C-alpha cells in the first residue's frame, strides 16, 4: 500500500480560507484523503494574495503561505452563496465524509448550508468548524485573528517569557501562526474522533474547534499556579526560577537549562569549574533563584568565553540540557534536519521548485507526503463535469455568471 494513502478512502470538502481551516484540510490531504478546496471565484483563497511570494512577485500562484497550506488538494471555484452554487455545494456534501469550514460562526446557516441542512443530506457527515472563539457563547461573533487569539491566551501573556521591564516589553505573538495552527490540529483531531464514532455508530456530527480555546489549553502550568497554589501567574523574570533562557556565547546564543542541581553541576563541569561559580550563592536552586541577577550575570560571562558548537557538544556529553539558538535559515540548512529529510522539494508549474517542511510528525508506514498545491480552479472540469454531472454548457453558463 502506498505510504501516503492511509486516508485515501476519505472525501473531504474544504470551504475555508487563510490558515486555520486550510491547515486542517492539509493534514488530511497529505495523508491521501481527497480534499476538494472550494475557493471564491475570482481571487480565490485570501492566502493567495498573502506574502511571502516566490521571487517577491505578488501572484495568486506564488504565495508561500498558500502553497504550503494547500498541498495535495484539488481546487474548484464555486460561490455557495448563490442559489446554483448552493445546489452544487450540496451535491459535493452528499458525497463527502468531512466538510471543513472556517467561515464566521452563523455564516453557513445564513447561506442555507448550516449543519442541520447538511446533516439532512448526509447523516454520516462530519462538519469540522474552525473559528476564533467557538460556535456559541458571548464571543461567538467576535472577530479574531492569530494575534488576537494568541494574545488572549495565558501563553500569549507569557510571551516573551522572563520579562524585566513590563512597561517596555509588550506581549508578542508567536512567530508563525501558532493559534491558527493549534486550532487546525485540534479540529483535525476532533474530526478523527468523529470518524471513530461514525465507524461504531454510523452517526456523523458537528465539531466545534475554536482556536482561542486550543491555544489557551497550552498554559497548564500557568493556570495551575493560580488555580492550585493560589498565586496569580507572573510573567516577570523575577518570579521564574533562574536558568532557562537563551544565553549569549562567543558566536551567538545557546539555550541552556540549569534549574536543578544535577544540571548545574554539569554546567560547572562544562565551564571548567571556574572559581566564580564556587561562591555560596550557587550552592542550591533556591539560593541561585534568590540571587538571580548576579548568578545569571556570572554564568553568562563564563558561557561567553566559548563557541556554541563546543558548548552544545560537550554539554550534551555531560547530560546538560543545552542546545543552539538557530535562526530559521540556520535551521533550514541544519545537517540533522537534512539527515531526517525534514524538508521536501516540490515543483510547481508557476511558482517553481523549492523546499517545504515535510510533515508535523514522521510515520514509518503512512508518512504524510505533500504534493504541490493546486492552481485556482485547476480541478473545475474534473469535479463539475466528472463528479457532479454538469454539462459543458452548464459549466460555461456558470462561469459567465461568476458562480464558478
Amino acid at each position: 500500500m502506498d505510504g501516503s494513502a492511509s486516508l485515501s478512502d476519505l472525501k473531504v470538502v474544504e470551504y475555508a480560507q487563510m490558515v486555520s481551516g486550510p491547515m486542517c484540510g492539509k493534514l488530511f490531504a497529505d495523508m491521501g484523503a481527497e480534499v476538494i478546496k472550494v475557493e471564491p471565484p475570482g481571487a480565490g483563497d485570501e492566502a493567495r494574495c498573502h506574502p511571502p511570494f516566490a521571487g517577491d512577485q505578488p501572484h495568486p500562484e506564488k504565495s508561500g503561505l498558500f502553497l504550503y497550506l494547500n498541498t495535495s488538494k484539488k481546487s474548484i471555484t464555486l460561490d455557495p452563496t448563490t442559489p446554483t452554487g448552493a445546489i452544487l455545494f450540496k451535491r459535493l456534501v452528499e458525497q463527502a465524509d468531512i466538510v471543513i469550514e472556517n467561515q464566521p460562526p452563523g455564516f453557513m446557516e445564513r447561506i442555507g448550508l448550516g449543519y442541520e441542512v447538511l446533516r439532512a443530506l448526509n447523516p454520516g457527515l462530519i462538519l469540522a468548524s474552525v473559528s476564533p472563539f467557538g460556535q456559541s457563547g458571548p464571543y461567538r461573533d467576535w472577530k479574531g485573528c492569530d494575534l488576537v487569539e494568541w494574545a488572549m491566551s495565558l501563553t500569549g501573556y507569557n510571551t516573551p517569557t522572563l520579562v524585566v521591564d513590563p512597561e517596555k516589553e509588550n506581549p508578542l505573538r508567536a512567530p508563525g501562526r501558532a493559534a491558527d495552527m493549534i486550532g487546525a490540529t485540534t479540529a483535525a483531531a476532533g474530526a478523527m474522533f468523529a470518524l471513530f464514532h461514525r465507524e461504531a455508530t454510523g452517526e456523523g456530527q458537528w465539531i466545534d474547534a475554536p482556536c482561542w480555546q486550543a491555544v489557551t489549553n497550552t498554559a497548564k502550568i500557568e493556570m495551575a499556579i493560580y488555580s492550585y497554589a493560589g498565586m496569580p501567574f507572573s510573567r516577570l523574570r523575577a518570579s521564574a526560577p533562574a536558568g532557562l533562557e537563551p544565553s549569549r556565547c562567543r558566536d551567538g546564543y545557546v539555550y541552556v537549562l540549569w534549574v536543578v542541581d544535577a544540571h548545574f553541576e554539569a554546567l560547572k563541569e562544562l565551564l571548567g569549574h571556574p572559581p566564580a561559580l564556587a561562591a555560596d550563592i550557587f550552592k542550591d536552586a533556591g539560593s541561585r533563584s534568590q540571587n538571580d541577577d548576579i548568578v545569571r550575570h556570572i554564568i553568562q560571562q563564563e558561557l561567553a568565553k566559548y563557541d556554541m558548537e563546543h558548548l552544545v557538544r560537550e554539554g550534551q556529553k555531560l547530560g546538560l540540557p543545552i542546545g543552539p539558538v538557530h535562526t530559521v535559515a540556520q535551521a533550514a540548512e541544519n545537517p540533522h534536519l537534512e539527515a531526517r529529510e525534514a524538508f521536501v522539494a516540490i515543483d510547481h508549474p508557476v511558482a517553481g521548485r523549492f523546499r517545504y517542511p515535510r510533515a508535523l510528525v514522521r510515520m514509518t508506514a503512512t508518512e504524510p507526503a505533500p504534493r504541490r498545491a493546486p492552481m485556482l480552479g485547476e480541478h473545475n472540469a474534473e469535479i463539475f463535469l466528472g463528479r457532479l454531472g454538469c454539462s459543458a454548457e452548464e459549466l460555461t453558463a456558470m462561469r459567465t455568471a461568476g458562480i464558478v
Partner: protein
Amino acid sequence: MGRLPLEGLRVADFSWIINGPQVAQWLGTMGAEVIKVESQVYPDLTRLFPNCMADRVRGPNRSGFFHLLNYGKKAITLNLSKPRGRELAYELIRYSDVVIECYPAPTARKLGLTYEQVRAARQDIVMVSVSLLGKTGLEPAEWVGWGPMAASFVGMFDAQGYPGGPPRQTGGTWPDYAVGTAVVFHVLAALRHRKRTGEGQWIDASMGETVLGQMPEWCMDYFMNGRDRRQWGNRDDVMAPHNTYPCAGEDKWIAIAVRDQAEWEALCRAMGAPEWTRDTQFADQVSRWKNRNQLDERIGQWTRAHDHLVLAATLQRAGVAAGAVLDSVELHQDRQLWEWGYWWELNHHEAGKRVLPGMPVKLSNVPQLNLSPPPDMGQHNKEIFGGLLGLSEEEIRRLTEENVLY
C-alpha cells in the same frame, strides 16, 4: 454517559511531563483506556513540581500541573529498571493498541522502550515517540532537553524577539503542546490504517519539526527568497495596526488587528475620530503598514487611558478584531470560557474542589467526556496487575516487596 468515540482502545502510556501525557489525556477523555506507567524511579516529574501544589502543601497527588495533564487516566507503578518490570511492561503492551513514550533516546533504550523492542511484544502496535528533534538522524537524536530547546533549535526564539534585540522565548512550553495536538491526529490515522490493513507503525514526533511546520511564512520566505526573518515583534505582512497596546493599570494590554479600510474606519470612530487619523501617512492600508511605528505610538497613547477588558468589548462591538491580554485570574473568570464549556470542576480527595481546563474541541454527539479524576500514584495497580495481567494476590505482594511494582 453515552458511548465515547475511542472505547475499546487501550493505551500503555510510558510518557511523562507534558507532551506524551497531553496526547494520552486527549485519547483518555475520548474513551480510550489509558494506563499511565510510573515508578518511584521515574515518577511523572509534574507530581513534584513545587509551584503548583494545592494550597501550597506538597504531595505527589496534590500537584495542579499533574492534575491538569492527567485526568481521564489510570495509573500503575512498574519499575522498568528491573528485568521482571520490563517483562510485565511487554505483557501490558501485548494487550494494548498504542504505546507512548517521550524519554531521551538513551533512556528509552535503557528502559527497553525502542520501537524494535516494543514491536517484538506486539507486532501491530502503534507506537508514539515524542522527542526534541526526532529519534533518527545525527547527534541531536540523542540529546537531552525540554520543549523550548526544540523551538530554539529550529529558529522560533530567534524570530521571537523585539526588532533589533536578542532572541526571546515563546511562552511556557509551547512545542510540547503543539506536538501533542499534532500527534493525536496522526496516531488516530495510524490506528485507522491498522484497522484497514493490519499494519502497525512507529510515529517519530520531533517537537522541532512540528514547530517549523507551523511557521509557514518563515520557512517559505527562506526557501523561496533566501530571507531570514529574525526578531519579528508583532509585525504582520499586511495588517497595520497589528500589535499589543498598553491599557490602564499595571501590565494590562490589548491586542488590536486591522485588516481592511472598513475596520480602520471603525477603529477611528471608536477612538472618536481624532485629527491625526486623517493624516495622509495613515490614509490607506499600505501607508499605515509603512508607517506602523508612528501608528502604534498614536494608538498606544489612546489605549493607555482605557480598561483592557472594556476596550476589547467596545472595539469588538465596533467591528474591530481586538482582545484583552488576560492574566491567570481573568482567564479563569472569562465568560466565554465558562459559557462555551471549557472549564469543569474537579472534586479531588486531596486537592478538594478545583477548576480545570477541559477539551478545547466540542463534538455534538459526545456530550460527556471521560473526566475521571487524576490518579494517585499506583492507584490502579490491583485492577491492572490483578485483572488485566492476571497476577495473583501473592505475586502482587511479592513483586511489591521486590520493588518491581514500585
